[in-house]
C-alpha cells in the first residue's frame, strides 16, 4: 500500500553519526527534512535566544516576542521543504522574524490609528510601548545601570521602523552589512545609510549617557 510505504518512510529517520551540536545549520535542516525532530530541536536551541531578543528589541513586548519567535520556528518547520541553502540559515530565519515583527508593528499602528483613546497621541516617530523585561528588585548599585539599560531599550524601540531592524542587527546582533542587507532585502548603500541615520537619532536620544561613557574612555 502506498500509504503504508509513506508511513514507513516517515519513520525511517536517519540519525547522524556525530553529535547534533557539531552539525552545521544546513545539515540540521537536511536532517529535519528527513524527519529527525531532534535536529530541529537543535536548530531551535541555537536560535531561540537571539531571535526572541531581536524581536523583543523591535517590539519592546516580552510576550509578543516569545510568540513571534515561536511562530518563526513554526514557519521554518512547515516550510522546510522549500528552504534553499542559497543564504545562511540565520539570514533566512531572521528574515522571517523581521517580517513578523514588522507586520506586528504595523498592526499596532493601525490599532492605534483607529482607537479613539490612543488615536490622538499617535505620531509616526513616537514611542512604542515598552515593557521592561525584569521587574525584580535589584541591588542599589544596579539601579542606575538598570535605568540606563531601559532608556537604551526605549530609545531603540522608539526608532522609526525603517531604522529599527538595521540598527539592532548591526549594533546588537553584530551582523555584517551584507547579511543585514540580505535579511532586510535592501541594497548595501541603503542599509548603511539607515544604520547611519538610526545612529544619529540614538546619539541625540542617549546624549547624557554618551557624555559620561566618552568621559570614561579618556
Amino acid at each position, binding site marked *: 500500500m502506498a500509504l503504508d510505504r509513506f508511513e514507513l518512510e516517515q519513520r525511517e529517520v536517519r540519525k547522524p553519526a556525530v553529535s547534533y551540536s557539531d552539525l552545521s545549520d544546513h545539515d540540521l535542516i537536511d536532517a529535519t527534512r528527513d524527519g529527525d525532530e531532534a535536529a530541529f530541536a537543535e536548530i531551535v536551541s541555537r536560535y531561540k535566544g537571539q531571535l526572541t531578543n531581536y524581536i523583543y528589541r523591535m517590539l519592546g513586548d516580552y510576550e509578543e516576542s516569545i510568540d513571534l519567535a515561536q511562530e518563526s520556528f513554526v514557519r521554518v518547520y512547515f516550510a522546510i521543504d522549500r528552504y534553499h541553502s542559497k543564504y545562511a540559515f540565520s539570514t533566512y530565519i531572521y528574515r522571517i522574524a523581521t517580517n513578523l515583527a514588522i507586520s506586528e508593528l504595523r498592526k499596532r499602528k493601525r490599532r492605534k490609528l483607529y482607537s479613539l483613546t490612543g488615536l490622538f497621541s499617535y505620531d509616526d516617530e513616537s514611542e512604542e510601548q515598552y515593557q521592561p523585561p525584569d521587574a525584580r528588585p535589584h541591588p542599589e548599585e544596579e539601579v542606575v545601570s538598570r535605568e540606563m539599560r531601559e532608556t537604551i531599550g526605549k530609545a531603540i524601540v522608539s526608532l522609526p521602523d525603517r531604522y529599527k531592524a538595521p540598527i539592532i542587527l548591526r*549594533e546588537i546582533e553584530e551582523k555584517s552589512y551584507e547579511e543585514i542587507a540580505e535579511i*532586510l532585502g535592501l541594497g548595501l548603500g541603503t542599509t548603511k545609510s539607515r544604520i547611519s541615520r538610526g545612529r544619529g537619532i540614538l546619539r541625540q536620544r542617549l546624549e547624557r549617557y554618551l557624555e559620561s561613557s566618552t568621559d570614561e574612555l579618556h
Partner: protein
Amino acid sequence: MNCIETREILKSGERPSERILEHLRECGECARVADREKGLSELLKMAPAVELPSDFDRSLMNKIENRRRGGSSVSFLRPGFLVPVSAAAVLLAVLAITFALFQGQTPPETADTADESIPVNSSADDGGPSTSGSETFPSSDELAGPVVNASPERAGTPRPNGESADQRKDDEERFEGRSRDLAAGTPESIIPPFFDGTPKAVPDPAPARRFSPGELLAEIGIEARFEQGGWKVLSVRQESIGARAGVRNGDLITSLDGRALTDAPIEGGGKNLLVVRGSRELTLTITP
C-alpha cells in the same frame, strides 16, 4: 583621508580602516568623534535582554503539533493547493466578465480589477504597498514606510485604490445602472471614499455605517472634543488631510456638508467643514 570623510564613516558605525586609524592618530578632533561613536556602539550593546520562559520548547512543539493537526495555514499555501484554487479564481473571473457582457456593459478593465485586490490604500508619501505575505519580505519601500496613512478597510467602506475619480464614477454607473448623487453634484475628484459618503459600487449597497464625528475627524488627522455647538479642535496632525484643509487648533467644527456635528454618530462623510474661528465662520474644503 580628510576629516569630513573620516567622520562620515565613523558616524555610520563602520569599523575604522587602517587609513582612518592613521588619520585619527594625527587629528585630535576626529579622535574625539571616534571615541564618541565607539561609546554609542558600546551603549547600544547594553540594551536589555530577556530570558526565555522554561516552557519555550514545549510551547513551540505544541504549536507545531496544533498546526499540524488543525489544517495549518501553512499547508494551505503549499503550491499543490494553490493550483485548484487559482483555477477556480480564474473560472469565477471569466464568469463575472461574461455576465457583465450579457448585461450589455463593458467589462471592467483589468487594471480596475487588479486595483480592487489592493486591500489598503497607500498614499504617495506613505512608502508603498502595505501588505506582505508572511514569508515574503517587504520591499525596501515597505520597510521605509510604515503604513501610517493607510487604513484598513471598514465594513462597507472600501478604501481608495488610487483610481481616478472618473474611473470610480464609471464603475459606479456601470454596475449600479443608475446615477448616484455623487457628493451632491460636487466634483468628487480627490475625496477619500471613506469620507465622501459614496460607497463603492455594489449592486445593493449595505446601508452606510455610522461613525462618531470624532472618529471621522480623526480619519483626517484632527483630534477634537465635543463641546456645545460643535467639535473643538485640540490638535491637528502635521501633513494630515485636516491640516491641509486649513483646520487649526482651537477651531470649532460645527457642521459637515451642512449637517450639524453633534456627539451623535452620522452616516457617511462629506467634504465641506464649517468652522468657527474666533468671530469668523469659515468653510474649509477637504482635499486629500
